Every structure is written in C-alpha cells, then in structure tokens.
C-alpha cells in the first residue's frame, strides 16, 4: 500500500517537474524586461492630451459666457415684464 502511494507521488512530482521545465522559458520571459528593437515610440501620444486639455478649458469658458448671457437675458425679460405691469396699473400717484 505504501509502495503504491510512494509510486503515485513520485509520478506526480515527475509530471509537475516536467511541466515546470517546459513552462520555464515562458515564465522567465514574463518577468524580464523586453529589449526594444528599432526606434523608441510613445505608447500614449501627447497630442491628444494637449488637445483635450485646451479644448476643455475653452469649452468651459464658453459655457460660462453663455450662462452669463442667459442670466442677463432673463433679467432684461423680467424688467420688461415689470414695466408692462406698471404701465397697465396706470399713472403713478
């Protein structure tokens, strides 16, 4: 019985050792720095970030200008409505 278990264990260890030997080059490659061949190129192009930053800033300013213009328009409308209301009420005492 013991012999049988030992034989199975030996077989298992042999299989695992074989698999490790077979996978070793791939594992080593995953933990090594890869040598760059040819000219170094940027993974993240800077142009997109610059365009996004500039675009965002000017769009934010534009949105704010529009919101102020709308506010001024609303005040002007309210002033007009108030004037009409006063005119309808007749001459001031």
């Amino acid at each position, binding site marked *: 019985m013991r012999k049988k278990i030992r034989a199975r264990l030996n077989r298992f260890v042999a299989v695992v050792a074989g698999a490790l030997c077979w996978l070793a080059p791939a594992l080593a490659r995953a933990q090594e720095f890869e040598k760059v061949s040819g000219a170094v190129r*940027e993974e*993240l192009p*800077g*142009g997109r*970030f*610059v365009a*996004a*930053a*500039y675009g*965002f*800033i000017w769009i*934010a*300013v534009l949105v*704010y*200008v529009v919101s*102020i213009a709308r*506010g*001024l328009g609303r*005040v*002007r409308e*309210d*002033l007009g409505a*108030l004037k009409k*209301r*006063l005119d309808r*009420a*007749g001459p*001031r*005492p």
Partner: protein
Amino acid sequence: MRSLGIGFWIALALAAAGFLIVPTMIMNAPTEPVMGFVQKIFYFHVPCAIMLFLSTFVCAGGSVAFLFKASERGDRIAVAAAELSVLFGICVLTSGPLWGRKAWGVWWQWDARLTSSLLLFLILNGYLLARRYGGPAGKKLAAALSLFAAVDVPLVYKSVDIWRTVHPRTTVVPTLDPRMRPAFWSAFALMLLVWSLLLALRVRLENARAELAELRLEAEDLLEAAS
C-alpha cells in the same frame, strides 16, 4: 441696464486676437526634451492656476468688505469671483490630470499639491452652495468660507517646496527657458484678459439682479398705493 463701455469691447477684441496668436506661439515654442509634446499643457495649466488664486483673493477681499463694512458691492464682487474660482479650478483639475497621465503614468496622486488644490476647489464650491442653500445667514457663512479659501492659497502654492511631491516645484516659471517665456507670458496675458472680461460680465449680471430686486420692491409699493 447700462450699455457696455468701450474698454470692454477693446478687451474683447484683444482677447479674440489672442485666441489666434497665442496657440501659434505655443506651437512654435521648443518642445521639452523629457516630457515631450504633452508639456505644452503647461502654457494654459499654470495661468489657469494663477487665475484660480487671483479669483480666490478677490472673493476674500469682497467678503471682508461685506462682513466688516456691510458692502453689498463687495458681496457682488465676491460671488462673481467665487464662480470664476470654480471655473478656473475645474480647468486646473482637468488639465493637470491629463498632463499627469502622460508624464507620471497616473491620472491622480494624493500628494500635497494636488490634494490642497482639490481642497481649495471644494471650499469654493462650499461658498457657492452656502449662498444658494444657506438661507438668511448663507451670505455671511459663505463670506467666512472664502477667508478659509484665501488661507489655503499660500499652502497650495508652497506645498511643492514644503513636502516631497511628484508635482513640479515653484522654481519652474522663474527658471523657464528664455525661448519658452514669450509663449508662457502671452498665454498668461490672454488668460488674465479673459478673467477680467468674465469678472466684469458676472459683476454686471449681479448688479442687474440687485437693481431688478429693488425695482420689484418699489413696484409692489406703487401698485399697493394705486389699488
């Protein structure tokens, strides 16, 4: 409402010319060898940060006038400046991470400069929220908050010199390459012009609202007397 003065239209024309000239100057400025093209975000990121600081100080100044002299004009300038602080805060906190993603490899770092800038932005948002939802005492509460924001500004500025951070230090602008200076200072001038125009417009809106409120009260009295 009074019509806009000649100064406003001259400033607007200058700003329009700046929109055409400044990007050309930035493109012609030399590319930084370590960071590459993405460093060009610097030309608008830094002026936006300076406008954030300037707006915060103007807001605090107006708030002081409101708190200690009950100046309504000071309060109107303060609310206009607070909105500009939030606007330029958004610009800084958006352009910065875009630069950082390329330069540092991450969008955000909880370092002293970035965290204190975020804190300043949150305090200024708190100012606007207190004014809108703070009830009768909202104006005074907001004015007090703006003083805390003004205290945070020197901390934000000096944070890169006091603590170890990934953010560039305050020596960047004084030691800027002479070939990069024209682009930087022209971008700064453009941003200052835009800031002044926005402040003038926003204060005008606040004045118009105050005038309208006064007229409403007068009209109510007149209508009551007439009936």
